[in-house]
């Protein structure tokens, strides 16, 4: 076969391939979420996830990018976490971010995972708690938690145990917990990696220790209300989130707030099925 002939065939093949790829792209756009109605998305104030004071944060950036990619109109609001779960369950709210699954929540919400992290117990140094087992002997230890928050298995166990002993102070946001921890009204609280930069800001890092819970990393994701979104739509939104993960967008958002190794540790994880 002459060389010119081979080139012609190769060129034809390339043209065909480009056409096919264009078609695939067209199909992908066509299979995006149904934007026939405006959606609602709620943020909650939580360290680097979102700060209402500056209207910035990981979840804000993630939401902006997700909304942009979906092409839908999404009204973003800020609410306490407990209220968010309540509205997700009722179907009055479509989305929220950084949610973790529990058996109860799986009943009314589905998730599209985009990061994973461990939980830490932040304790005052003067509480003399070096490890989790020390808490068994601390009868006056008071834990601060955010209402409706769940964590990893052993952290949940600790919260439930202290709750039944009336040794848990609830809040609807992190800010008062930092304040009460500083004032020694509570001696500990459970935090996540994106809360740690706040410790310095709140001058808590000098008076506290961090103890890691011996649980595997817990995946966090986009929360979708099963009541307001059909399963097929949930899948489309999940695909969007996965595309944000696979093309490195999520990683880049996290790198804005963390060093690249921490960002990598949080965003490289195996999605649960």
């Amino acid at each position: 076969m002459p060389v010119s002939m081979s080139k012609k065939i190769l060129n034809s093949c390339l043209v065909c391939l480009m056409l096919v790829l264009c078609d695939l792209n067209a199909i992908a756009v066509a299979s995006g979420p149904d934007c026939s109605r405006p959606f609602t998305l709620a943020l909650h104030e939580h360290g680097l996830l979102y700060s209402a004071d500056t209207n910035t944060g990981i979840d804000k950036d993630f939401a902006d990018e997700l909304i942009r990619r979906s092409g839908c109109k999404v009204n973003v609001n800020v609410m306490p976490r407990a209220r968010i779960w309540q509205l997700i369950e009722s179907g009055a709210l479509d989305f929220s971010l950084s949610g973790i699954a529990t058996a109860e929540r799986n009943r009314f919400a589905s998730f599209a995972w985009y990061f994973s992290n461990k939980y830490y117990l932040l304790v005052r140094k003067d509480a003399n708690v070096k490890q989790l087992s020390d808490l068994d002997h601390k009868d006056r230890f008071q834990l601060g938690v955010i209402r409706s928050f769940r964590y990893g298995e052993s952290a949940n166990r600790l919260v439930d145990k202290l709750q039944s002993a009336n040794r848990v102070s609830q809040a609807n946001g992190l800010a008062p917990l930092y304040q009460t921890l500083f004032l020694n009204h509570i001696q500990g609280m459970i935090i996540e990696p994106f809360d740690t930069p706040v410790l310095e800001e709140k001058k808590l890092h000098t008076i506290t220790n961090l103890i890691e819970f011996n649980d595997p990393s817990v995946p966090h994701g986009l929360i979708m209300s099963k009541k307001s979104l059909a399963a097929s739509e949930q899948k489309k939104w999940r695909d969007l989130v996965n595309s944000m993960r696979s093309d490195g967008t999520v990683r880049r958002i996290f790198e804005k707030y963390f060093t690249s190794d921490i960002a990598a540790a949080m965003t490289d994880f195996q999605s649960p099925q």
Partner: protein
Amino acid sequence: MTRIRPFILPLLILIAMLCATWLVWNHERQNTSNQIRSQFDFLLRETVSRVEQRMASYEQMLRGVQGLFTTTEVMERNSFRDYISSLQLDSNFSGIQAIGVIEWVPEVRKSAHVAAMQRLGAANYAIKPGGQREVYTPIVQFEPYIGSNFALSGLDQWPDQVRRLAMEKARDSGKPAISSMLRFSADKEADAQTGFIMYLPIYTKGQQHDSVLTRRTYLTGWVFAIFHMHDLMASLYGEQLPGLSLAIYDGVEPSASALLYSSVEGGITNQPSAITSNEYLVVAGRSWMLSMSTLDDFDKRFGHNSKSLIVIAGTSLSLVLAMLAWLLASGRARAMRLATTMTSELHKKIEEYEVVQALMLKAEEALVESNRKLESLSATDGLTGIANRRRFDEVLAKEYSRHTRSGAELSLILLDIDCFKAFNDCYGHIVGDECLRQIAQVIADCATRTTDLAARYGGEEFVCILPETDLIAAVAIAERIRSEIIARAIPHGGSSVADYVTASLGVVTARCSANNSSLAILSQVDELLYRAKSLGRNRVEYQFFETLSSLD
């Protein structure tokens, strides 16, 4: 030990039952406590949720006012008034004292601002307090335009640090922000009201405000709402909290100076038994502490009073069961005691009975002995000791009958002491009696067979029954008697026969038959005695009994 034993089982039952009662009571107590606790948690959550919801609705309402200024200018007084009026803020929103607008006025625009305000109809408008400052934030509009609110017109908010901090926060975040606690003493009411102000920023129309810098650059003012906390809490949906006291503090410390609201006059005083819980709220960027505490009647309202019922019923049941057990245990013991007593009494009675029986036996034996003696006495001759006449008659009648049946020969010997009257006369009756005794002894010694009977027939006459004895043997016995009397040689001076006592004897041997009688035999032997006497005494006359006529 024996005394204690009946108490052991009841005591064990009592302890076991009391333990069971305690277990049930404790279980119920924990149940009740858990129920009260979960009820309390539920009410706390509900209360927090109600406050959050109420604040969210106020925020939303204020966003509406904010939204108004995305279409109109800050200075358009009528649109603002109409808008507020169309909101129809009825008693559901009674917490709001005033809704207003603040304009951001840098020093350079101050005089233009005042002139514009005056041009719009507020003839006496001035920024209060007076003086020169870099920036002014006067209240330019407010509703309702009545009463104490008049004082708000032109009031610069910036010099007040509390207000300024909240305004700055709203400006920089673009979101609602509330001030820390304020006391509104400007009201004409005697008591100062606690409350707060909520601010929302207004930015220049058509300008982006997505960063702190742009927000600061394009700020034109704020909309705000003044809230009185008590009225706000009164406007919450839902029932008043039963049996609970509620306090809300500004910030996270429960100090009296930060007390925004208290459902109890003078703040909450915690009772020792009360359940207390604090919950922290972030309301429009500000932390509040909500403190809820149970009052006395909370337990009565939600706790079941079955604890005391269990204690009373359980204790009573325990006591009753223990009592029953004691009755059963001691009943047996008492029955045993009674049985033992009865048995010992019975033994005693038996012993007494045996003693009496022995005595009776003895008495009976004595009686038999007496009877025997009496019988013996009645058959014995008192003087001589041998059988008497009565005995002789009985034996003779018996022997006669017996011999009649057997056909054997029956012999009789009749003896009379010769000249015994003379003996008595000679020697006296005492010696006479002795003589009679000796003679009786001789007769008894000669009639030695057990069936033989020697008897005193009367006076100095003796008789001898010799059963189954023929005439020869009978005569031999009679002769031996006569010889033995002589051999005794009892002196008899008055005898006509010899110097010693002698006797005459008659002997008869009979074959008894129903045709004859013992009397006939007696009669014949008497005849033979008479014959011996008449033939000289000291001799034996004998004859075989046949008939009386044959004797003649």
